[in-house]
């Protein structure tokens, strides 16, 4: 199916463990993003990528690592999970950031609980 898919949808882990959230898109969009959603904060950008092998920090990158070896995949890794990283994580993609074509397409989210 065309679209953007995230896995796992739900994950419970313990403090200090490594966790990887996967994101796959089938449109060959250049831009991909990871956001976290927390009550009272809306969506905050963690990392984004303009193309394969090009990534950049967003508003809240500490404690996260990303890679983008292929255009369609953009995994997010928590190297040593902390309770403050309990959140819902959304992956998104966009064909362009330019005003007349840019819009974001979202996955359904990954709900992570760190105990």
């Amino acid at each position, binding site marked *: 199916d065309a679209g953007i898919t995230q896995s796992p949808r739900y994950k419970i882990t313990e403090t200090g463990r490594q966790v990887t959230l996967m994101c796959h898109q089938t449109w060959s969009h250049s831009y991909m*993003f990871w956001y976290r959603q927390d009550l009272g904060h809306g969506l905050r950008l963690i990392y984004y990528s303009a193309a394969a092998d090009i990534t950049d920090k967003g508003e809240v990158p500490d404690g996260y690592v990303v890679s983008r070896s292929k255009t369609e995949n953009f995994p997010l890794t928590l190297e040593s999970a902390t309770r403050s990283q309990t959140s819902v994580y959304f992956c998104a993609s966009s064909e362009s*950031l*330019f005003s007349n074509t840019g819009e*974001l397409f979202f996955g*359904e989210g990954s709900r992570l609980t760190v105990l």
Partner: protein
Amino acid sequence: AQSVTQLDSHVSVSEGTPVLLRCNYSSSYSPSLFWYVQHPNKGLQLLLKYTSAATLVKGINGFEAEFKKSETSFHLTKPSAHMSDAAEYFCVVTLTGNQFYFGTGTSLTVIP
């Protein structure tokens, strides 16, 4: 610098009555503006977008928004609320070639 402010964190309306969700932005440049909707346990879906064409933008499911530069606003409206409109709504602003900035969201409750 730019930011986006959603003026109400919660809005309740009765089914069949109008909906108004307010959004103000601050930007040094001409922005692009979006409204997204998020239903429970779902990702965000684009409702409509303003990209410097017509100031009154029509979106899906009967929603529309008007860009008012003098008021730096982009309020979302719908003439008659439906139960299926109950969701979280996000106002988003971006500059050309830059990031997307999200408001903190407005939760819409529709009372039968």
